[in-house]
């Protein structure tokens, strides 16, 4: 279900949902109403039909009563009594015809028979002298009745007649007076006029054998011959009662059909029934008009609903789209304009929440940004990613200290603001270099920068990055010096110390005010090494540990030193440049110095001195190294005159910090 409704647009979804809900309901209602309407229409027609059939019964009864009235009254008038009294049949039949005329068509025939059933006169001239068959049955039934009256349907010359019988009183019953009218097309037409239904008189003959079909024939009818044929084909008589309505298809549609008995009972071999029929189509215009109205109403309902849905969708979708846009912008880092959504409903609440969230995010980002500026971004991330807690972890970190020699004299004649500006420039350049080499600035102390390689995150080539940084700092300063030379400013020099070792990295300070940093012997050593650069007159000093972790560079071993606070002697080096980038002269100088150092440690003063002299002479162009050689020359001169212990390890001890 949810898959089906996963449209791209909320409006489409709502529309589809509405239609999916409404259409079945509307169709259901339509179908139901239609069915009920049709049933009601059929019921109405059926009730009219029943009414019509009852009217037919009533009409026939009335006709019968009229017959009886005529035969009863007319035969008591003196003229007829006299005529009958004569016994002359020709006179009697004339008197009978006279009565028929006076009946104004209500009576069509008259037959007079003696009490024993001898036919005296018969206006229809059927030709029998004695009453037989149904006539006799009728006579007998009248004789058996209380008032001597009877009626029956009797076939007279092929036409079924409604016959009544009543005695002729002179003053006692002396004869039977039979009167009748035909149930012919005219009768059917007369009945149809009053009940506005089609009337047929149908004869049904069944010989009783179960396999044989019955013969159904129409005696008289208001239907045309085509429809009479359809009627005989479809009319069910066996098994039907007179209260069942049948549906029979005639030329112009289905007709509700009811039967009324005229002669015989259901199950008799001969039955004559009156068939009343009314078309169901009569009401069809009403039904169709109703259907049209209903359809129009539906269309209006659906149209209005669609519009309402579209409007509703819009009232929901628009603010949501605005919100989505805002969230997308937030995703992209734009915390700008707040979404204006009025209303206290869910969407309004959502908009409020989004606005607050954006504000919060903006603030956090500001803080993070700021934090990233105060500490390095990596430290900021480290801090933000973990729960702030005092304490730290031990790790191997390469610590780099760098300061600017000659900065103070550079700023002698400068105003404080200018000093700060200049300082910031240098620090920016150095920081850039450090971060470019994936180092992390730990802190600035005046003109000094402390950088970490391996904390908060360590990398496999932390030491190499540190050494690369050293070279970069030096070249940056060289560039700066070139600029300064042009403007007449004093030049500066770098002093960098690098050491790799175990530190404790973590948050130092109090809970509310802390500093992410590293502490440990390694840190101290690194700082010492930085300080020692002045002593050796080299731009950088790198410890042996770092050198071991940072291959790919050319190192000049400087000394074996013992610094205050650390018992173990440390071999220190100077990084000269990348392997492959150092020129041949420098390389040979490095080599020569290494040899000199070997002699020095072997107390071969003369060999050492000789090499030093060679280095001095090759030296005119490069600055700074003069003093390194000079340091050793001085030392040698001093050591020549000193008596050295047997276990002299050539370690130079720096007592002062």
């Amino acid at each position, binding site marked *: 279900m949810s898959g089906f409704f996963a449209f791209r647009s909320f409006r489409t979804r709502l529309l589809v949902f509405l239609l999916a809900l409404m259409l079945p309901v509307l169709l259901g209602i339509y179908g139901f109403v239609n069915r009920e309407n049709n049933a009601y229409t059929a019921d109405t027609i059926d009730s009219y039909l029943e009414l019509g059939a009852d009217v037919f019964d009533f009409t026939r009864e009335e006709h019968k009563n009229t017959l009886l009235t005529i035969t009863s009254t007319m035969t008591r008038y*003196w003229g007829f*009594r006299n005529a009958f*009294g004569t016994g002359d049949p020709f006179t009697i039949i004339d008197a009978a015809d006279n009565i028929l005329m006076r009946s104004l068509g209500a009576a069509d025939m008259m037959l007079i028979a003696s009490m024993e059933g001898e036919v005296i006169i018969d206006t229809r001239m059927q030709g029998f002298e004695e009453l037989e068959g149904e006539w006799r049955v009728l006579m007998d039934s009248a004789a058996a009745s*209380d008032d*001597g009256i009877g009626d029956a349907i009797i076939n007279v010359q092929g036409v079924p007649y409604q016959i009544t019988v009543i005695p002729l*009183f*002179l*003053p006692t*019953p002396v004869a039977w007076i039979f009167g009748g009218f035909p149930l012919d097309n005219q009768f059917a037409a007369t009945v149809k006029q009053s009940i506005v239904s089609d009337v047929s008189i149908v004869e049904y003959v069944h010989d009783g054998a179960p396999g044989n079909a019955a013969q159904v024939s129409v005696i008289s009818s208001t239907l045309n011959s085509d429809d009479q044929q359809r009627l005989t084909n479809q009319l069910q008589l066996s098994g039907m009662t007179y209260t069942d309505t049948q549906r029979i298809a005639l030329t112009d549609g289905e007709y509700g059909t009811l039967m009324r008995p005229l002669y015989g009972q259901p199950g008799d071999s001969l039955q004559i029934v009156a068939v009343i029929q009314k078309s169901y189509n009569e009401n069809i215009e009403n039904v169709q008009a109703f259907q049209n109205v209903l359809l129009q109403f539906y269309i209006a309902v659906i149209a209005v609903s669609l519009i309402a849905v579209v409007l509703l969708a819009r009232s929901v979708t628009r603010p949501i789209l605005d919100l989505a846009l805002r969230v997308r912008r937030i995703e992209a880092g734009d915390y700008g304009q707040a979404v204006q959504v009025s209303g206290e409903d869910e969407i309004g609440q959502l908009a409020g929440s989004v606005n607050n969230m954006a504000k919060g995010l903006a603030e956090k980002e500001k803080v993070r940004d700021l934090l990233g500026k105060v500490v390095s971004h990596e430290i900021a991330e480290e801090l933000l990613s973990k729960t702030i807690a005092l304490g730290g972890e031990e790790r191997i970190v390469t610590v780099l200290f760098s300061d600017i020699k000659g900065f103070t004299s550079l700023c002698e004649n400068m105003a404080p603001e200018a000093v700060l500006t200049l300082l910031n420039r240098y620090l920016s350049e150095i920081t850039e270099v450090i971060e470019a080499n994936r180092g992390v600035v730990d802190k600035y102390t005046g003109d000094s920068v402390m950088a970490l390689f391996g904390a908060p995150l360590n990398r496999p080539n932390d030491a190499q990055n540190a050494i690369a940084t050293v070279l970069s700092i030096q070249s940056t300063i060289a560039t700066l010096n070139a600029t300064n030379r042009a403007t007449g400013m004093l030049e500066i020099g770098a002093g960098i110390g690098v050491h790799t070792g175990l530190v404790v990295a973590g948050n130092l300070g109090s809970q509310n005010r802390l500093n992410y940093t590293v502490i440990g012997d390694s840190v101290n050593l690194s700082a010492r090494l930085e300080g020692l650069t002045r002593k050796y007159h080299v731009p950088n000093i790198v410890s042996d540990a770092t050198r071991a972790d940072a291959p790919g560079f050319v190192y000049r071993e400087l000394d074996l030193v013992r610094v205050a606070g650390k018992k173990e002697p440390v071999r220190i080096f100077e990084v000269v440049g990348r392997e492959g980038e150092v020129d041949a002269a420098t390389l040979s100088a490095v080599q020569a110095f290494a040899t000199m150092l070997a002699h020095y440690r072997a107390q071969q003063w003369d060999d050492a001195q000789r090499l030093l002299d060679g280095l001095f002479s090759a030296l005119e162009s490069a600055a700074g190294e003069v003093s390194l050689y000079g340091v050793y020359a001085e030392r040698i001169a001093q050591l020549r005159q000193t008596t050295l212990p047997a276990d002299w390890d050539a370690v130079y001890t720096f007592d002062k910090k």
Partner: protein
Amino acid sequence: MSTSDPQVAPHNSRVLSCLISLAIFGFSVSAQAADLRIALQDAETGTPLEDAVVEVRVPDDMHAAHTTLGEFSVDQIDKEFVANVTVVTRGSSVRFPNSDDILHHVYSFSPAKVFELPLYGNGQNIDYQQMFDVAGVVEIGCNIHDWMLGYIYVAQTNFAVKTDAQGQAVISGIPAGAYSVRIWHSRAPVDSPELVQALVFDDAAPASLRMALTLERDTRLRRAPNVSRDRYR
């Protein structure tokens, strides 16, 4: 020889006739005269049957000796014939006075006598006498009032009598012999065999006729409901 009869006038004549007959024939005749005691009842209900007529049919040659003519009248009172059944000897005459205040039209189409007295009122046709010269039952009716029905039983001889309310009657002076006795009632089926009895009369003891007749249903027309009006609009 007595007959109980509510109608005084006609039966007075009859009694007179009988007395005269007795006087003529004297006691010698009475030695050969027999009585017939009649008691009839309705077979279905068991009640005494009134207005039944019993006639002793004697041979034709004896008719003259036992025919006494009389004058009778059948009145019309309150739109009914009174008496309903009247027994007359052939040759007698019957008057039909109208004691009602409306007109009546008396008629009969019976083969024994076809006659009519067209519309007449009280005081009219006082002297009119209809003679009934054929033996048989004459059914009289009124053309205006369909329910009015009366019977005049025209007997061949004097030996006919009508039963009273107790269903009893006596015929006296019947000559000894064996005769056919006919019984008639308006509701007895005409061809019923029980209506013809053969009886032997001798002067030793009176003959007795006790019967229960099986009658047909009463199919007479009912009196109209508004028959006793005193206004006409």
